[in-house]
């Protein structure tokens, strides 16, 4: 572990170094409408680190909302298939939220599971993630309940903790260590005991504040979900859900995609993959017209099951980092932390299969 500090001024100079070396720097920054998005910056002054949570997560930099897989062209008696590049120029994400960084590592499991997704891992390898310990967003945060935390280092190559005048920096991975090594002049050696203590107090303070929002027993939650497919709860809580999928689009871990062929003229076209979501009726409709998830109750249940039962069943961890974006984005007022709290109360009373209808 390397612990260093960097001043805000030197961090600005580091961004300038990176940009002039041709590295794409992604950071939370204000959009035209004043909201914060992760986007490419060319100057450190554009970054809004530690401001509000970016509207969308980091996943789009590894799994873009739409991306070409290959294109084809039909000639006389043959078809030429042109693959896409699977190597990418270097990227640095500066000021990632720990919940977003953790999500990327959680998704590595599924992206490298039955086959290795070259596009995902191509971008992963080209990207260094520098997170900043989170000051907490609002009452919808529940990262600590999912096994993470506002200062979790998971998925980060480097973790910064804000201190007076700059950041305490810890290299988490070999990639992070190499990054510090390559830009050694911008960092100074570990801070004095007072600064380190202040950083520690910041971390534990936020952590205990967020922990008050929700406590989950993930194994008990999973057991309940596995035994409660037909529970009345799904009928009762889903009424306000529009099935719009805004939750999935802002979710750092929802990763389902659709594959489409788009003709470009008569003899050419592109195969693309686009974000998709289990919250829409179309997601599961069969060619026959039959839809095994006939209504929104079944679709919402699927989202909860995938995150807290199916994914842990296959990969040993939940598919949620507790960022709370789904609750914030929902136009109908659905609230995942509230649903998890409700289920936890049912687990407590043993009301799983018995209460099923």
């Amino acid at each position: 572990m390397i612990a260093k500090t960097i001043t805000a001024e030197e961090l600005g100079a580091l961004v300038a170094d990176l940009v002039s070396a041709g590295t794409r720097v992604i950071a939370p920054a204000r959009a035209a409408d004043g909201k914060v998005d992760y986007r490419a910056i060319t100057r450190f002054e554009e970054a809004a680190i530690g401001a509000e949570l970016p509207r969308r997560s980091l996943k789009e930099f590894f799994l873009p909302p739409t991306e070409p897989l290959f294109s084809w062209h039909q000639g006389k008696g043959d078809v030429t298939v042109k693959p896409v590049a699977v190597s990418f120029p270097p990227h640095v994400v500066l000021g990632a939220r720990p919940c977003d960084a953790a999500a990327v590592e959680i998704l590595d499991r599924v992206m490298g599971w039955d086959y290795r997704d070259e596009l995902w891992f191509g971008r992963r390898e080209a990207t260094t993630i520098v997170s900043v310990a989170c000051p907490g967003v609002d009452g919808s945060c529940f990262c600590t309940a999912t096994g993470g935390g506002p200062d979790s280092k998971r998925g980060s190559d480097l973790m910064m903790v804000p201190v007076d005048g700059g950041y305490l920096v810890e290299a988490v991975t070999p990639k992070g260590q190499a990054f510090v090594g390559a830009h050694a002049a911008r960092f100074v050696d570990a801070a004095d005991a007072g600064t380190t203590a202040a950083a520690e107090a910041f971390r534990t303070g936020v952590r205990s504040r967020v922990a008050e929002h929700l406590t989950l027993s993930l194994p008990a939650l999973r057991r309940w979900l596995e035994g409660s497919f037909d529970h009345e709860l799904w009928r009762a809580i889903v009424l306000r859900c529009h099935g719009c999928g805004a939750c999935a689009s802002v979710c750092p871990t929802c990763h389902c995609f659709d594959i489409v062929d788009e003709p470009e003229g008569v003899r050419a076209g592109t195969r693309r993959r686009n974000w998709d979501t289990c919250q829409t009726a179309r997601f599961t409709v069969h060619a026959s017209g039959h839809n095994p998830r006939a209504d929104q109750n079944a679709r919402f249940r699927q989202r909860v099951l995938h995150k807290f039962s199916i994914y842990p069943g296959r990969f040993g961890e939940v598919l949620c980092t507790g960022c709370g974006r789904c609750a914030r984005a929902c136009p109908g007022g659905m609230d995942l932390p509230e649903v998890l709290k409700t289920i936890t109360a049912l687990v407590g009373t043993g009301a799983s299969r018995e209460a099923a209808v």
Partner: protein
Amino acid sequence: MKELQELARTLLSSGTVKVVFGWEEGPRGARPAFITDAANAGRLVFDHRCSHTLATYLSPRRPHMTRLGKAAIVVKGCDARAVAGLLREAQVKREDVVIIGVRCGGVAADPADAGPLTAENVAERCPGCTAREPHLADHMVGETKPEPPGAPTRDARIAELDAMSAPERWAFWQAELARCIRCNACREVCPMCFCERCVADKTQPQWLESSPHPRGNFAWHVTRALHQAGRCADCGECARACPAGIPLGLLNRKIAGIVADRFDYRATDDPSVPAPIGAFSVSDRQEFIL
């Protein structure tokens, strides 16, 4: 509030309706509530955080809603226009819904906004609203509220866009629509997007590309805006739901202005006024026919 809760309790306990669509206190401000038990009528609230349009939940293509049985719905003036749209287009029968009108003083853009209502946080449709008391209502509750705070209106924004050159306007919409990720939230929350099968979901042939690239995004948003011409209730749900923050209301509002100009039709909560798409008049302007 008491008046609303009392009315809901009476409607439910008398068996007049099986469910009351209203708003309740949620973890993040006000949110839609569906009260089926008279004992829970006390959960209903109405204040400036009740931004949502509940008319969308009357859609006949939501089996998990329709099986609840006959509904009463709480409507603001703007929401009443959406209910009128559903009645006008034969999606809901008048005798199948009890309409509870509430007098409105404007709502916040974000239902989690504790207020007070200011020019900064008010929903964009509210300043200058002329429909603060619904006419389409079986029951009216609440007292007249003060006018919503004044704020720059969408019409002023549209005038700015109209004043741009075509390339500037193109650049504006390019930048806005580039953020679209085609989640379809705008469509799903729209009370007037009730098609059993949306043209955007058809694949044989694929009329609209589903990819969130500029070509697909323009095709989708232009199609949706045109399908809303003379139909949009101006409830603001599409823009509120958009997780990318695209000002979709500007598109619909612009078209509403054109419809008003050419067909003398404005979104209304009187379901007997035919929408221009479903009516023919010999006085319709037709100078475009060669």
